[in-house]
């Protein structure tokens, strides 16, 4: 029961990953691409992490997975901001 729930969560996360990477490929400029990427980063990984927590019996490992997810959230926010700002600065320089 828990296994199937976990698999469901993982596959739900996969959907976000796939749509994120398709967005990365199809969207027209850097900023909208970064926006698509953030979906994959935050929601996709959140569901995969949820599935993994359901499957992983060790409490310490569960805590680690939660920490990983929080870190990826923070890291992706900061990284997207930095990358977008660099792109914006370059765009301004070109004009």
């Amino acid at each position, binding site marked *: 029961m828990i*296994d199937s729930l976990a*698999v469901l969560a*993982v*596959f739900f*996360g*996969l959907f976000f*990953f*796939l749509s*994120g*990477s*398709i967005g*990365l*490929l199809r969207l027209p400029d*850097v900023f909208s*691409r*970064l926006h698509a*990427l953030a979906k*994959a*980063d935050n929601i*996709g*990984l959140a569901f*995969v*992490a949820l599935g*993994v927590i359901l*499957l*992983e*019996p*060790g409490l310490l*490992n569960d805590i*680690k*997975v939660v*920490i*990983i997810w929080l*870190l*990826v959230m923070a*890291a*992706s926010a*900061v*990284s*997207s901001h*930095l*990358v*977008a*700002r*660099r*792109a914006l600065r*370059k765009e301004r320089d070109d004009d």
Partner: protein
Amino acid sequence: MISAGAASSILTIALLSAVIVLLLSLFIGLIRAWLGPSVEDRFSAVLLIGTGGVAILMILAIVLQISALYDVALVLALLAVVGTVALIQSERTHD
């Protein structure tokens, strides 16, 4: 560790297909890294590989029963930021 017998083999099949889908999504993201055109586009693809890699490592930790892979995922999540920062700071001053 996981509930024994036939259920776990179905679980393994589901999780392995999840890994395949994640690899497919990395591949789609990589096309963006190959096409570019700007450095920021390429780097958003690298960010996607970082996050997708974290997801793959967490799933592999369950399939292969190696809990050290959570540490690897943690390290990957932490270090993805260092790479981004290096990219942002790598702009030439004399351009």
